[in-house]
């Protein structure tokens, strides 16, 4: 009996030791990200039947359990996806917001300076200095357009770079999760107890991954995580991790899209509406919903200004008595053929009516019978029976060859205009300021008409001047950025609340651990006392023999 009391004391001591160890582990990991606090689960040891009753044999440790709520953890991960997406979209769009913020470095002052110089030339058309000044401010205007477009191009390159970085990070996380799947299975089967720290690590990886892209997690019966992205593509299945990659877009080689390498080794390009959530979703949304249409609208300002000015310029006469030529060189609409096209059609796109241009990009597809034209900014679709056709101020025609079913082309009527706008005249005598071919030095008739273009409603079917179009662009960017900032703040707030809920279940509270330390210390002391008493009983027994 005495020795069993010693054993009881020993089990109590061990349990107290483990308790202190676990408390110490909690304290040490109080600030570790993703750590769920652990607690010792004890149960009484099997009792012995002594005839007069069952005498307990002390305690045993059943397991060390992590305090963890799967629901809360999943909610946090899901919210991290939304926050990641909104924060990324906001950050990218804010770059453009800041670009347009400076009222003295923006496009509007350059347009105003240019027309000021036209007015000055109208006041003194024979003066070489006034003419030279007009050319200089025209050059400055073209440079300003180019500068803005260049910056937008830099932002697009930045998006490509971040896509690359995000995709490689996703692959890293996927590999790590797969490895942890293996390790957790091994650790679980070895002891039949949950490997708490490994489980925490895996959940933390899922949270990190969720910030990059929205994922669905399915737990297998053997405890492994299967991770799915997009429209159900598997990223991690059991021990195996698949890869994502970036591929050059089939219609625009300067643009990267996200691809997925499947089990047969083929790369599948993921469509942009299948990738939602996270940094990846935010980047793609930014690019498709904002960047493209902003670039198109900036180009629309350039095309409208350039074409209107050219048209009026060609009605006047220069100092040599010749009719005015082209003043601004405007790049033709950009056409990109999908690399998978099987037909040999050569598409020709020309601007037919500047006032009807929308600034949007278009996809032209052929299904075998009809052509469909899809606007990229609002998704509006038009069906065209045959070509040539004039749609939204743009004339579409096939010059040679024909399309096969499934062919598609990307048409960008205005997107390249701002970057390619340039001055076509370098000789001041070629500026057509006169209205008559006699072109006297005081003939400023055409100059007056050119100056009046600044406030004329030449764009958007006669409802806006090109400065109005620019103002609409600034307003759209401002509105969208504002909206995103508000949504982002709200979502961050929600995330804070969810993390708070999760932490209130799983988080370590140092005061609580301090209490536990005291408790286990006292338990240890009490257990020690039990053993001491047991030993004293034995000594007593021995002295009886003396």
């Amino acid at each position, binding site marked *: 009996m005495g020795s069993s009391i010693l054993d009881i004391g020993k089990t109590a001591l061990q349990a107290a030791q483990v308790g202190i160890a676990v408390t110490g582990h909690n304290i040490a990991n109080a*600030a570790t990200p993703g750590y769920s606090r652990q607690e010792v689960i004890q149960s009484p040891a099997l009792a012995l039947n002594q005839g007069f009753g069952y005498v307990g044999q002390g305690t045993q440790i059943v397991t060390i359990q992590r305090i963890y709520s799967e629901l809360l953890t999943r909610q946090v991960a899901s919210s991290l996806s939304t926050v990641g997406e909104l924060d990324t979209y906001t950050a990218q769009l804010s770059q453009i917001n800041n670009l347009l913020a400076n009222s003295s470095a923006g496009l509007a002052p350059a347009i*105003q300076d240019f*027309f000021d110089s036209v007015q000055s030339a*109208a006041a003194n058309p024979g003066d070489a200095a006034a003419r030279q000044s007009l050319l200089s401010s025209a050059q400055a205007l073209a440079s300003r357009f180019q500068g803005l477009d260049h910056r937008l191009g830099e932002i697009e390159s930045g998006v490509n770079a971040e896509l690359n970085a995000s995709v490689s990070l996703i692959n890293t996380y996927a590999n790590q999760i797969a490895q942890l799947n293996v390790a957790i299975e091994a650790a679980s089967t070895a002891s039949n107890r949950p490997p708490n720290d490994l489980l925490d690590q895996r959940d933390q990886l899922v949270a990190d991954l969720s910030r990059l892209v929205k994922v669905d997690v399915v737990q297998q019966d053997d405890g492994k995580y299967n991770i799915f992205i997009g429209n159900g593509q598997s990223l991690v299945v059991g021990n195996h991790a698949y890869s994502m990659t970036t591929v050059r877009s089939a219609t625009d080689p300067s643009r990267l899209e996200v691809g997925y390498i499947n089990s047969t080794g083929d790369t599948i390009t993921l469509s942009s509406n299948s990738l939602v959530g996270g940094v990846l979703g935010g980047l793609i949304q930014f690019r498709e919903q904002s960047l493209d249409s902003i670039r198109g609208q900036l180009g629309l300002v350039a095309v409208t200004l350039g074409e209107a000015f050219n048209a009026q310029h060609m009605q006047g006469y220069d100092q040599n008595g010749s009719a005015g030529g082209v003043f601004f060189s405007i790049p033709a609409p950009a056409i990109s053929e999908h690399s998978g096209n099987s037909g040999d059609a050569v598409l020709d796109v020309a601007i037919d009516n500047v006032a009807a241009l929308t600034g949007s990009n278009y996809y032209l597809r052929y299904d075998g019978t009809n052509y469909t034209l899809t606007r990229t900014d609002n998704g509006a679709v038009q069906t065209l029976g045959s070509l040539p056709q004039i749609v939204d101020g743009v004339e579409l025609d096939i010059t040679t060859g024909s399309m096969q079913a499934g062919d598609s082309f990307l048409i960008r009527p205005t997107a390249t205009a701002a970057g390619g706008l340039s001055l076509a005249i370098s000789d001041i005598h070629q500026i057509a300021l006169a209205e008559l071919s006699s072109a006297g*030095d005081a*003939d400023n008739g055409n100059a007056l008409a050119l100056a*009046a273009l600044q406030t004329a409603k030449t764009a958007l079917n006669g409802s806006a001047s090109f400065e109005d179009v620019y103002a609409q662009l600034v307003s759209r960017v*401002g509105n969208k950025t504002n909206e995103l900032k508000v949504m982002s703040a709200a979502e961050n707030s929600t995330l804070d609340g969810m993390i708070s809920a999760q932490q209130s279940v799983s988080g370590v509270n140092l005061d609580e651990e*301090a209490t536990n330390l005291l408790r286990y210390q006292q338990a240890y002391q009490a257990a020690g006392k039990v053993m001491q008493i047991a030993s004293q009983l034995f000594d007593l027994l021995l002295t009886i023999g003396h």
Partner: protein
Amino acid sequence: MRISTNMIYQTGIARIGDLTAAQARLQEQITTGRKMLTPADDPVGATKALALRQAASVNAQYAENRQAAMYSLGVEEAALNGVTDLLLAVKSTIVSAGNASYSDTERGFLATDLRAALEQLLNLANTRDGTGNYIFSGYQSQAPAFVESAGGVSYQGDMNQQQLQVSASRRMNVADNGAGIFQAAGNDLFQTINDIASLLETPVIDATDADALIAGLSATMDSIDAGLDTVLTVRAAVGTRLNELEALETFGQELDAQYEQSLSAVEDLDYAQALSDISRQQIILEAAQKSFVMISGLSLFDYF
């Protein structure tokens, strides 16, 4: 409800971070003097500000055009003033030429005066402005309006009038062509003066000559009077235009002031509000910092 130690730190720092960010933003507003730092701060205001800036810039350009118009019209006014004085002087010469007691010699002297007056009239008709443009040549301001040749003085400008946009809705003529002033309705002033000078140089021998002289002098007076009428009419029109420019200038300046005011209302910071906001947020920030230190300092381990 449990609060993990992490959350105490994180929420505390997050709130302090938010307050610090708000302070930084107010600081930027104060140093730039603007309440709208980017279009996102006030999208409607940003559009308004762009429109106001453009309107103000166009308005300023019209003001410059008005200056140019006033200058051109002023040069024309001065020239026409000279022409008026000259024609009046010619008239008095003609009157004295009618003096029956004058001999051929004296009439010869008068003829010399008239020839000098003709040269001066030609110079006035070919007035150039500060940049060297001939103001009476219509659009052909690079060449003199009138040239003298064996057959007389002929107009080589054209019939156009240069215009300037002096306000949003007003394009004003800022020049008049010489043919309409000096050779209007077939009344060629140069020819008239040339003829009468030649007539005065002709000796009066008989009664036919005397009759011719009287008729010539009378016809010349009529011509000069008609010419003077034309010049004064044009001068009146120039004067009217100058008056109109002054009125447009006043209106333009008022518009300018309005644009500035509107722009200021959209963009400028209300300093009183901003400074009071910044000191209020300062107090909140200090309170948050103090309370954070207090709460995070509480620990059971202090009592072990």
